């Protein structure tokens, strides 16, 4: 069975589609990917360089009558963009107008009462534009580029920086370097969210876990 090495901007659904699987769970739940599942408990948050075993495709059988034509439809699961927008005080940004561009599709809507914004993404979407006109904000959303935040690998700092930025703690560029601005952002997060009287600016286990739970993944 082939091994797929994850590239930036890929996630399980896109990899499954690439290999002709309608359902990403066929790959993720394959016994040969047990170690991968343990390493990446959230299949939507994987890291470039991760190795995934691609199972052999299972041959299906369908009975057809000779001399007739038929249609075969494959249900491909579409990925979803799911955001929860909040104000700086943690309150949801309820009923806020937004303009979202997903591929060629432009969507105008309002957030739900809990600040939620959710849309199915066209296949191949790796970038989206989000505008909040009432707040003068516009964002470029890089889909699938959020790295896992764990103790392994070199991506821990960059993964933390991405979550800090999403949570409103500006830490400079997402470059994987724990510089002065990153440490200041971590300290601010520790003081605000962990209520630490003496925040140390270090990405310790408690801070990493809280970053993940606060961010949502």
């Amino acid at each position: 069975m082939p091994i797929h090495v994850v590239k930036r901007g890929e996630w399980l659904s896109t990899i499954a589609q690439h290999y002709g699987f309608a359902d990403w769970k066929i790959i993720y739940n394959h016994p040969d990917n047990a170690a991968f599942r343990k390493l990446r408990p959230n299949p939507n948050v994987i890291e470039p360089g991760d190795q995934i075993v691609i199972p052999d495709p299972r041959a299906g059988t369908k009975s057809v009558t000779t001399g007739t034509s038929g249609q075969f439809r494959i249900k491909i699961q579409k990925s979803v963009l799911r955001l929860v927008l909040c104000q700086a005080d943690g309150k949801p940004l309820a009923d806020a107008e937004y303009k979202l561009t997903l591929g060629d599709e432009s969507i105008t809507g309002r957030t739900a009462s809990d600040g939620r914004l959710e849309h199915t993404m066209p296949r191949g979407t790796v970038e989206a534009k989000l505008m909040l006109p009432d707040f003068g904000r516009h964002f470029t959303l890089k889909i699938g580029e959020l790295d896992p935040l764990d103790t392994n690998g070199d991506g821990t700092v960059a993964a933390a920086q991405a979550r800090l930025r999403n949570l409103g703690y500006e830490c400079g560029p997402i470059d994987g370097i724990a510089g002065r601005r990153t440490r200041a952002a971590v300290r601010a997060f520790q003081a605000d969210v962990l209520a630490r009287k003496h925040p140390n600016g270090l990405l310790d286990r408690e801070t990493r876990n809280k970053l993940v739970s606060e961010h949502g993944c």
Partner: protein
Amino acid sequence: MTDEALELHIAPSNKDDTTFNRIVLSGLDIVIPLEIDLDEDPKTDDAIRLIDRDGDYSRVLEDGDDDVVRDAHAPFLRCTFRVVPPGVYDVDVRLHNKWHTVIAGLQVTSRSVRLNGESFVGTNNLGEFAEADPVPADDDSDDEVAADTVDCPL
């Protein structure tokens, strides 16, 4: 506010899972007192505008809006602009149906509001506000000034 869109790294989700990405709009609530009926024309609503110099942000508050509250002790409207992103702003008031700039170059960072080098930190007391110590302008300062709401003079 910056000219470029802020780039955010986002995890995708599936229909049948609960993965989400929380996005917090950083910014300050800025309270600006506005003298009631400044133009002595009771037929026109008092209005104030906060506009950034790139033209990306422009909000108008008028008497009667939810974020405009009459001061209990003075003839002022307390106008609250919510979640104002970092940037450089002008404050305009509407007099006789024309906008006039009354504060130019209000500098909003993620932690404070500064005008001519003077920093305004969170307080609801205009007297305390007027006595706020000036701080050197340094956007990259590591000083942890906790200020979610700031009052600005007019």
